[in-house]
């Protein structure tokens, strides 16, 4: 197996607010191989965005990485100084955000916003950068690319703006692309187009992708591997087929159960499991999912379960995998075929 491109170990990030410390990320670990698409899924507030923002040093000023490491090609992103981090951002690591309506600067042409990224990281002339921007617009299939460089964001539809964002993120051939809910704000048909484009670009350019989403349908179609996050932690991690065929964590099972049928292709948003996520200012000592878990036991409230490796590359953070736990069908006891 190849060397990981990114290796995150025990990442912890908190926000310090007037109402106390918000423990947004509480010990997240994962690995990403070159060219791999890793999906991160979870309810709102589970820490998906903050995990990625922590890696690039993009936290708001009240946020701080408390602990952990994040080796990217052998360099620890969390130890880099501002200058070195700036060198990586937009160059080795590109990023796309959720709302294309607000993530582009309304007072600059889209061309300028792409060109300035290229000029920041490449020693080439402005004309060459413009040429490169035109090629990128063609790559993401913006019609009449050269002309459209001179347009302002408000002259584009949401889908077209997201294409501009993608062009911008890919402008310096990043090894890693982080896409934080790139389609959530778009219409269903546009969503499919953008996802198809992302998949196509990934297979053509070969960069690794972290794809954050609420949408299990998107994960099923796009990702190679999945992280399920809850309460600032990874609850389950598995290759994508395995995750859908044999989910091992009660939370994942709840998420999947809330989707009528994945195969009919309708992209269902997660319908929440009854109850609400934990207060991250006072995270519970035990399993964060315990108050909402149908299988919760006395042990679950007392201590945080470790991640059990239920299969090769498949981990699940649940006490039910403990040898002495009661048998629950489908979790620690195979469903009869």
């Amino acid at each position, binding site marked *: 197996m190849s060397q990981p491109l990114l290796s995150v170990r025990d990442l912890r990030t908190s926000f310090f607010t007037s109402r106390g410390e918000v423990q947004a990320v509480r010990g997240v670990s994962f690995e990403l191989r070159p060219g791999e698409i890793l999906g991160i899924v979870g309810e709102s507030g589970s820490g998906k965005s903050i995990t990625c923002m922590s890696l*690039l040093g*993009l936290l708001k000023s009240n946020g701080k990485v408390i602990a952990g490491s994040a080796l990217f090609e052998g360099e620890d992103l969390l130890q880099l100084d501002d200058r070195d981090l*700036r*060198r*990586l*951002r*937009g*160059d080795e690591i590109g*990023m796309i*955000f959720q*709302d294309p309506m*607000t*993530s*582009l*600067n*309304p*007072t*600059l*042409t889209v061309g300028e916003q792409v060109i*300035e*990224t290229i000029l*920041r*990281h490449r020693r080439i002339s402005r004309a060459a950068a413009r040429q490169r921007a035109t090629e990128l617009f063609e790559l993401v299939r913006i019609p009449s690319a050269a002309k459209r460089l001179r347009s*302002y964001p*408000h*002259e584009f539809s949401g889908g077209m703006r997201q294409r501009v*964002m993608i062009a*911008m993120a890919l402008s310096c051939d990043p090894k890693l692309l982080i896409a934080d809910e790139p389609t959530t704000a778009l219409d269903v048909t546009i969503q499919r187009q953008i996802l198809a484009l992302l998949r196509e670009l990934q297979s053509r350019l070969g960069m690794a992708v972290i794809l954050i989403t609420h949408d299990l349908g998107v994960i099923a179609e796009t990702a190679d591997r999945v992280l399920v996050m809850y309460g600032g932690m990874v609850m389950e991690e598995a290759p994508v087929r395995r995750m859908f065929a044999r989910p091992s964590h009660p939370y994942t099972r709840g998420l999947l159960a809330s989707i009528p049928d994945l195969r009919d292709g309708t992209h269902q948003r997660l319908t929440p499991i009854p109850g609400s996520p934990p207060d991250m200012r006072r995270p519970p000592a035990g399993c964060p999912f315990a108050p909402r878990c149908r299988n919760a036991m006395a042990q679950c409230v007392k201590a945080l379960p470790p991640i059990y490796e239920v299969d090769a590359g498949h981990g699940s953070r649940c006490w039910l995998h403990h040898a002495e736990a009661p048998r629950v069908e489908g979790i620690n006891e195979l469903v009869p075929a």
Partner: protein
Amino acid sequence: MTAYVLQRLALMLVTLFAIITLTFFLMHAVPGGPFVSDKMMAPEIQAAINAKYHLDDPIWVQYLNYLRGIATFDLGPSFKYAGMSVNEIIAQGLPTTLKVGVLALICVVSLGVPLGIVAALNRNRWPDTLVMVIATIGVAVPSYVIATVALYFFALRLGWVPTFGLDDWRGYFLPVFALSGFWISFIARLARSSLLETLQMDYMTTAKAKGLKPGQILFKHGLRNSLIPVVTVLGPVVANLITGSFVIEQIFALPGIGRHFVLSITNRDYTAIMGITIFYAAVLMVMIFIVDMLYLVLDPRIKYREAR
């Protein structure tokens, strides 16, 4: 774009026309006249004056005459200063008013905006607190109070600057300070809140995620957007600095238009009051027009909306 500019210009003319009409009839609705003062005038003198200034004509004839005058940039004769036209009164006061006003504007922009930026970038730290305390005082205390207090300390007690007049270059300090104090504070507060708001925008995170340097992010992505609201108020600010200076001109005894305006009111110099009012209105409208054009350059979204 051209259509929009033309449309704006036409609208300006209509507005100005409405203001002229309104001013004219309001002035004529006011009882009493310029020559009705304490001592009674002989009827024959009164008649002669009325004839000289066409005060006996029907009011609509007077109105049309007045309009005809304005169309040729002639605001008519002063009622009070024999042999002097309102144009001459304005021309006499304008250089002083303009000099003080432009200096004040330079202070407003070159102090207000940077102070706001420093405050925003140091949010909740001491530079911010300091700027905000001063700016709050500056907005809350009326300019004539600032003027009087400053006059007392710097001119009377310390003798650093003259108490009145502009013969000495140091004479500009206090009037300019008193005139711009409010607006420096106002612009500092506006620039601060606007920049703070801009810093929270998603596209600022995008700019950072692209690896841009802090200076590029602040100046290229942050300032331009956050200065849009500042530019918007700059038109009224300029107009206010020019027209609103009559209190300051009074206090420092500066021979500007504002001083003439106050004098013309106490003298019931009707044509002068009307003329200066219309002049003020025209200045205000031109300033707002210029700012709107500037706005068009700064914010491409406007162009788009107006073009449709």
